[in-house]
Structure formats: C-alpha cells, structure tokens
C-alpha cells in the first residue's frame, strides 16, 4: 500500500534538521518512529522529542496511515 505522509518539524528541531517539512511516499505500514528514520536516515531521533499524528500527541511506536500528518518537536515552552 502506498503511504503518503507529511512530516513537520518545529522550533529547535526544525533548526537542527534544517527543514520544516518533508513529504514522504513509500509502501508498507509504518510507525511514527519509522517515519522519522525514513525522513532522517542515519540520524537518530533526539531524546525528549515529542510526536504528534494529526495534531494529537502519540507514542513513538504508534502506527501511521496514508494521509497522516506526523510532527516532531521539542518540549513545549509557551505561556
């Protein structure tokens, strides 16, 4: 099955990966963690990074499905 996944990066993580967004297309089921690895080969996910799928927080081993928006970002510091 072809998966089309948008990946977004925010704040200090956006600066360290050097981009704000990736659009992945690949076949086969996947998890959030695997999405990171496909988008950032050879670079391990930094500690403390949070992940969201379709704007809800998820664990890194959550599944993703075709059309999902996956986001990675550091701990939030608003307020």
């Amino acid at each position, binding site marked *: 099955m072809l998966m089309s996944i948008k990946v977004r990066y925010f*704040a200090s993580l956006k600066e360290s990966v050097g981009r704000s967004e990736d659009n992945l297309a690949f076949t086969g089921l996947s998890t959030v963690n695997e999405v990171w690895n496909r988008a950032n080969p050879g670079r391990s996910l930094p500690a403390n990074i949070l992940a969201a799928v379709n704007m809800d927080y998820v664990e890194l081993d959550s599944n993703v499905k075709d059309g999902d928006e996956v986001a990675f970002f550091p*701990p*939030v510091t608003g*307020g």
Partner: protein
Amino acid sequence: MAIKICAEVFDPYLEIQAYQNENPSKGGAVGATSIFIGTMRDFNEGDAVKGMTLEYYPGMTEKQLEKIITEARQQWHVIDTLVVHRVGEILPAQPIVLVAVWASHRGDAFDACRYIMDALKSKAPFWKKELLATEDERWVVENTDGYKRC
C-alpha cells in the same frame, strides 16, 4: 468559550472587557472570575533578555487548547473561558498569555484557571526563543513549575 492566537501585541484587559461585552448574558450567574496574565520578563536563567520569538503549530495549538479547556470543564463548574496567546516577536513587559475563567464560585474559578495554565505550559505547542542582551539567541528548553528558586 474563545481561543485566540494573536500575532500582534494585545491588551489583556481590553480582551476581557470586549469578550464580556459580547457575552453579557452570564452576568448575574458569575460570582468569581479568575484571571492569569503571563508577561515577558527581561531576565531568564540569570541573563538579561531583550526580546523573544514565539513559534507555534497552527491547528494543533488550537486543538490542544480546546482539549485542555474541555478537561477543565469536566472537573469544575465553569461558566465560560477565554484564552489568548501571543505568537511572533515579543518585547519585555508585553503580555504572552491570558487565561480568564468565569464561574459561580471562587474555588471552581481558581482551580480551572490554574489547571488551564499549567496544562497549556506542558501541552500546548508553543516554543520560545530568547534574544539575549548579548545578541545571542537560545531556545527555552523547558517550562518550570512556576516558582522562584531561592
């Protein structure tokens, strides 16, 4: 219930008054209003700070704020809430966040306001980057528990 993300400087008192004027019906039921205003300090972690940039995740930020407010309303008797959060370039003393909670009784107003603020600080996707007086920039790494250390 309203959630606003502001790219320009806002006046928290005008925001509250405007919101109350647009929602006058709750008048006689309200006995308690608890308000929190977060403003930008000109120091942090021992360094002078002269500016700040607030980044957010459009869509997710609003979604998480709605969720937090729903959780507060499930726990306390709340009549209405207003949350305003600044994004973009901010200067010291400018407001960053406003949380206002209207309730019949003070315990409900205080608890819900504090819950919303604490949850916002740990769950709403906003990120601060500080511009120090030395011209260095740095990302704020983590929100604290909100008490001054001696």
